[in-house]
């Protein structure tokens, strides 16, 4: 009888633990992209060189190849396009049936007259074309890139009913090591701002110290953000600062003592959440962002647990829930909670565990549409980017490869992500989207790039 009871206990426990799944291997779930052909620029009376015009076209091609919806064909890919390239004319008739037979859906015609670049988007199925407002180019590609990105977003809006993300800006840090004789090396990182494709990078800070977690402060009234928040070690302990773009010095955000790390701003631009060890361990705090000229508000402790490290809060779009990382159950995992109101007791806070598949989960980021969380997790000993889908309740691995990937951040379209990845000695920023899970590197050069952050939706 006793043997039978022992056997039953053993069987039940094995059955229970046998449900633990092995490490998941990513399935390729690429969604077919809509094929588009962009004609060479038909040039008339233009002082802009053929080389510049082709460079401008390449900027447009990059945008169309990385918007998560279209892919551009080369002329050699189909016989119809091959015959077309020799007789390309902005206003001429097209061999629609041939193009349709070759699977082409849209053709984008480009014409340069002087400095004016015109664009017509032709639907092969409908056999009609729509002209998009022309743009004026200066011949300076670094300045003209913004206008070409606007053109790409306008094409996106025409095809899909909403603007693309080609005109959006990103922030990240660039870190350097400074060797010092007979002393510990010094590490310095500064904040850089760039176009979403990594071009036009400009340094925003000159603090000569470590900086982490730069992020735009959402602007009200449909304007682009002109302020950013970051964490700086300039006085010693890491503290949060807000600065206007291209201003010299930032101003403090919180009067809370001790370390202030891994901040996140609410989508409405009114609150900041962060981790601080003011109470003797790394807990999560919430505070209104200070209004200019006003006294700094008081922060409120919103999550703590004995003997734990808690970090990386991220707000839901409605500002009522928060995802964050805690090691309260051993290895750091991602949890979601309702943001507790004033007077809530710590013991009454309920957590929903999000990351169940992998260990060492970190840096969650809530998508602007509220439907997904992106985070990094150790997968077969390599940190990868994972996505949790609130609608299905499932996690899926987005990236693969041996580079160590961290700090995912969403674009305002909830489709694109940036993250930093370390491969060998270099750490760079990569761009990816959920429909095309092959990441593309958008930074290069000296210094290690970390903590990318995307410009939020305009409010």
């Amino acid at each position: 009888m006793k043997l039978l009871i022992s056997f039953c206990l053993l069987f039940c426990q094995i059955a229970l633990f046998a449900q633990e799944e092995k490490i998941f291997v990513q399935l390729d779930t690429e969604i077919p992209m809509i094929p588009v052909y962009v004609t060479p620029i038909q040039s008339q009376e233009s002082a802009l060189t053929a080389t510049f015009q082709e460079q401008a076209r390449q900027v447009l091609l990059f945008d169309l190849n990385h918007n998560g919806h279209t892919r551009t064909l080369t002329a050699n890919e189909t016989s119809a396009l091959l015959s077309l390239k020799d007789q390309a004319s902005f206003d001429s008739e097209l061999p629609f049936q041939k193009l349709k037979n070759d699977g082409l859906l849209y053709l984008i015609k480009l014409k340069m007259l002087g400095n004016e670049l015109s664009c017509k988007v032709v639907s092969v199925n409908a056999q009609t074309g729509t002209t998009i407002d022309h743009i004026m180019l200066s011949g300076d590609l670094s300045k003209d890139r913004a206008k070409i990105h606007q053109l790409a977003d306008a094409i996106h809006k025409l095809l899909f009913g909403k603007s693309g993300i080609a005109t959006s800006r990103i922030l990240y840090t660039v870190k350097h090591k400074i060797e010092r004789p007979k002393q510990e090396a010094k590490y310095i990182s500064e904040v850089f701002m760039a176009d979403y494709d990594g071009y036009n990078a400009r340094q925003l800070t000159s603090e000569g110290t470590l900086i982490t977690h730069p992020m735009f402060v959402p602007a009200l009234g449909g304007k682009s953000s002109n302020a950013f928040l970051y964490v700086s070690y300039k006085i010693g302990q890491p503290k949060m600062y807000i600065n206007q773009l291209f201003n010299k010095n930032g101003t403090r955000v919180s009067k809370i003592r001790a370390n202030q790390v891994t901040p996140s701003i609410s989508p409405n631009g009114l609150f900041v959440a962060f981790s601080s060890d003011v109470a003797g361990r790394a807990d999560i705090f919430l505070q209104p962002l200070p209004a200019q000229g006003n006294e700094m508000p008081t922060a409120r402790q919103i999550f703590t647990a004995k003997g734990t490290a808690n970090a990386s809060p991220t707000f839901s779009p409605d500002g009522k829930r928060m995802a964050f990382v805690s090691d309260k159950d051993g290895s750091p995992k991602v949890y979601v909670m309702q943001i507790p109101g004033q007077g809530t007791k710590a013991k009454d806070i309920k957590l929903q565990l999000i990351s169940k598949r992998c260990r060492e989960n970190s840096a969650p980021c809530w998508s602007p549409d509220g439907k997904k969380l992106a985070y990094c997790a150790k997968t077969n000993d390599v940190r990868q980017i994972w996505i949790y889908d609130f609608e299905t309740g499932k996690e899926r691995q987005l990236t693969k490869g041996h580079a160590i990937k961290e700090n995912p951040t969403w674009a305002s379209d909830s489709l694109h992500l940036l993250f930093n990845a370390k491969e060998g000695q270099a750490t760079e920023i990569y761009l990816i989207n959920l429909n095309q899970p092959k990441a593309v590197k958008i930074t290069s050069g000296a210094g290690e790039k970390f903590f990318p952050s995307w410009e939020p939706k305009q409010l």
Partner: protein
Amino acid sequence: MKRFLVQFALSLCVLQLTTSCQRSSDDVWNDTQSAGRHVARGVKTAFGYHGESREINSGDEFDAASGASNPDFVAFDDEAMRVGASDSILQARETPGEAGSSIPGIEAFRDPALDPELAEIFKHVHFDYNSSLVKGQENLTIIVAMSEWLKNHPNVYIFVEGHCDSRGPAAYNLALGANRSNAIRNLMIKEGVVYDRVFTISYGKERPLVEGEGEEIWTANRRGQFKVYEKN
């Protein structure tokens, strides 16, 4: 009954072997540590041990212990989570380098490793992977020695830096680094160092002592490190 207990224990061993084959040895050790922590807390509670009393050294600490609100933050009101509970000691009100502070910022603090006498006292304290527990006699001896020296030099302030190795994620490591520096700070305060002379900085994995990979390098980087400032 004895035979039943033996059979039950054997079945647990088989179970451990069966499930541990699906996980790495690090995973098994981490889970075993977690289970141990939960069991230890349960045993302590069962025997009525809920925390330890300690001397209050300042008005800030009294406010925290009594549950009065602190102007720079509002804490949870739970008895168990109250600031001043055994595993968490409130940080000093003054922040070195802040406007109005009598203590300068980090640039005025020096590395004791550059002074042969201080280097022997302010040695690095090392941690296990993914842990902020101060373990081992060697680490405790360092903390006791530092604390004694600081008690004999009451005009010296100290930054305790918490560092991590390169393997963990950058963001989480900033919190882990904070907990490591607080673990050292807590022990120094328990050794009698006045709490508002000890400050914490978390660097996470942002400032490795040694670059590269491998057990020796990782161990060297998982450290508590110190900077001191002597006020005249």
